[in-house]
């Protein structure tokens, strides 16, 4: 599974919301970022954060280069995706004026950014494109326009003079000149072909600059933090979900941040009342993991995150149901994929929301208990939420604190017992549903316990 960023954009964890907030200046940066395969080596991810940290120090609100941020962004907004031209150049094609114009523009952008960042940014080493610029700007005007200049060929200059002096347009002269122009384009293309690596690496480095600048701005906009790369454990303090936070704050309410931690070889079971935010916790965990793997800031006050090769986010969303599977079949198939990856020895994070909830409680409980049992000693990071009473397995349990004086307390606390809290009736009552129904349920419960 070679995951690219674009394949997780529409994950139910809400990655797209964050992605669309990035102020990328060039569509090239957007394309390159979307095509990035998900890094999973700790050293690779640490390296991306090293660069982000360097950019943050320089470009944050009190950073030394903050004053030139806007002008850098304007320059980067002129960056075009000319990878196609690079391919053609490598294949020994002769470029036309439009392509030469675009290479010249790239060189101008490269020199402008290099001038500003040289010696200040260590993580990106901009190559000089001065030679390319001289080649495409033989008259040294340093403006972005381009044509086959007279100075490229003495014969051309003579012909052009002749064309200018004539009062009428002469097809013959234009034809003659165009042959020379084509020859010049051929020569220019061959010279550029020799430095094509400079052109393609400049595209990458400028796009990388654009991406890092927009990641720095995102840190500020969404109040994200740079996490620590850990091994074998995920620890979040004050984790939140930016999208849900925004929704909650729109209704003039306060979003309650939560803290949670879990380790490999130790599945974490989250129980708790309905509407207690268990699914939000899972969504936030998935979101944080993805953001981490791609080197973004994460929505938490502080975080330690362990890189994984795969993220399995099993939540009851509509996708599989639409493709014809029943909700049960869709869910079971997804969890089976978790097991397959675990047995294949992959490092994974599995986040499973209320497994087997659509079947009868007896079998459901058995399925969940069995799932946790067989994965107890496996090297995976796993969080499972459930309403079932999972008794016959030793694992770490936490629960949502629940209703306190009619108000939901979303914080997660250690759970010692195995019984899930009985709050469903109280919460249903707080929603104002028909009392006769709830009273009848209350009676039934009493009969059972008596």
């Amino acid at each position, binding site marked *: 599974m070679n995951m690219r960023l674009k394949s997780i954009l529409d994950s139910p964890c809400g990655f797209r919301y964050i992605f669309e907030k990035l102020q990328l200046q060039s569509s090239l940066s957007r394309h390159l970022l979307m095509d990035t395969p998900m890094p999973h080596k700790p050293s690779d991810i640490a390296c991306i954060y090293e660069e982000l940290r360097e950019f943050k120090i320089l470009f944050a609100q009190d950073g030394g280069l903050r004053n030139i941020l806007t002008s850098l962004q304007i320059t980067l907004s002129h960056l*075009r995706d000319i990878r196609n031209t690079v391919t053609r150049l490598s294949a020994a094609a002769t470029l*036309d*004026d*439009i392509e030469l*114009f*675009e290479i010249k523009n790239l060189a101008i952008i490269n020199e402008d950014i290099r001038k500003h960042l040289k010696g200040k940014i260590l993580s990106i080493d901009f190559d000089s494109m001065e030679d390319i610029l001289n080649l495409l700007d033989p008259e040294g005007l340093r403006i*972005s*326009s*381009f*044509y*086959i200049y007279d100075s490229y060929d003495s014969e051309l200059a003579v012909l*052009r003079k002749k*064309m*200018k002096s*004539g009062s*009428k*347009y002469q*097809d013959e002269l*234009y034809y003659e*000149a*165009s042959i020379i*122009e084509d020859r010049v384009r051929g020569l220019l293309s061959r010279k550029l072909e020799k430095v094509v690596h400079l052109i393609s690496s400049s595209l990458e480095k400028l796009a990388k600059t654009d991406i890092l600048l927009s990641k720095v701005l995102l840190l500020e906009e969404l109040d994200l933090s740079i996490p620590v790369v850990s091994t074998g454990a995920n620890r979040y303090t004050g984790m939140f979900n930016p999208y849900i936070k925004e929704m909650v704050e729109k209704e003039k309410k306060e979003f309650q941040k939560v803290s949670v931690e879990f380790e490999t070889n130790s599945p974490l079971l989250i129980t708790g009342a309905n509407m207690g935010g268990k699914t939000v916790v899972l969504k936030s965990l998935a979101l944080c993991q993805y953001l981490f793997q791609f080197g973004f800031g994460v929505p938490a006050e502080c975080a330690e995150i362990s890189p994984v090769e795969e993220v399995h986010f099993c939540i009851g969303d509509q996708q599989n149901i639409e493709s014809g599977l029943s909700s049960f079949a869709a869910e079971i198939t997804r969890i089976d994929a978790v097991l397959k990856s675990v047995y294949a020895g992959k490092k994974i994070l599995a986040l499973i929301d209320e497994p087997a909830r659509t079947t009868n409680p007896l079998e459901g409980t058995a399925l969940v208990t069995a799932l946790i049992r067989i994965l107890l000693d496996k090297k995976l990071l796993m969080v499972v939420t459930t309403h079932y009473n999972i008794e016959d397995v030793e694992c770490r349990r936490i629960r949502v604190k629940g209703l306190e004086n009619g108000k939901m307390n979303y914080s997660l606390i250690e759970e010692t017992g195995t019984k899930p809290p009985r709050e469903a009736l109280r919460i249903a009552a707080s929603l104002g549903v028909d009392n006769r129904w709830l009273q009848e349920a209350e009676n039934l419960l009493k009969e059972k316990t008596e």
Partner: protein
Amino acid sequence: MPFVRELLKYDSISIVGLEKNTGKTECLNYLIKRLPLDIMTVAVSSIGVDGERRDQVTRSSKPEILLRDGMLFGTSEQHYRSRRVTSELLDIGDERTSLGRVITARALCGGKVLLSGPSSTASLRRWMDSAIKNHNANLCIIDGALSRMSLASPVVSKSMILATGAALSANIKTLVNKTAFVVGLVNIPVTKNAAGKILETKDDGVWRVGEDGEITPLGISSALSYDKLDSSTISGTKAIFISGALTDRFLNTISRESGDKKIELIVRDFTKIFVTPLNYNTFLKRGGKVSVLKKSKLLAVCVNPTAPDGTHLDSDKLCRELEKEIGLPVYDIIKNEYEA
């Protein structure tokens, strides 16, 4: 040839053909040939490729534009590659058309190019603004594609030239009538109602202007769809402003319901009028009045007496008859080499 000198008063002009092969491009070339380029920078472009495609269908060749030294032009990547002019590439636009992005370039000596510019009036307006602001153009000339009257809107260009000819009708009488109707629309006067300034800010809806100048909604969402509109709705109304399109149905309703009362219909500009000559003239004859908020200056009408099907009309007679009908000078620029 007076209209070239007249043209220097404006920063933009569009050339609109009432039918293909009415000599639009000849008209453009005629202008380019006579403009004093030594004292001004001229930019040319066209709207989209609409007309070009149609010409390929009818297999009549699309004439190239003759560029002069120093002129700016805007055309698609595809047509830039096939240009026959030495030119300096200045800028590449972000928007994509079916023939690629729009290139802005400067001709470095005389030459020829096919024009295919931005594909919408809004992006055309942006191109013109950029030519004026970034490349110091004093005048933008827009070669109008067929049936895109909207680009003659004063929002896009401040002045216009109308090209008509035998391709529109082989009968001089019909040709004159059809042309005169469009000329009549272009020349609809700007409203004298003092409310005009405020109406310019109304982006949608239909508005009533009362006897004392107060502006209130007429109570219908648009002139395209309404259930009930009778004499009681429009009683005490001096003028009605239609922000969108004026249609036959709306015109007839007003004509019927206003009775003896003379109501002024105000539209944004003449390109918003979509009514048949018959209904329009009936409305005017009954004492109705139509006016606009913004008007573009019609500089000249040019005729091409020859149609691709071989029809050839008497040029002098055509010019004479049309002049008599519209009260404006009419030129056959292909036949007559007028002095600048």
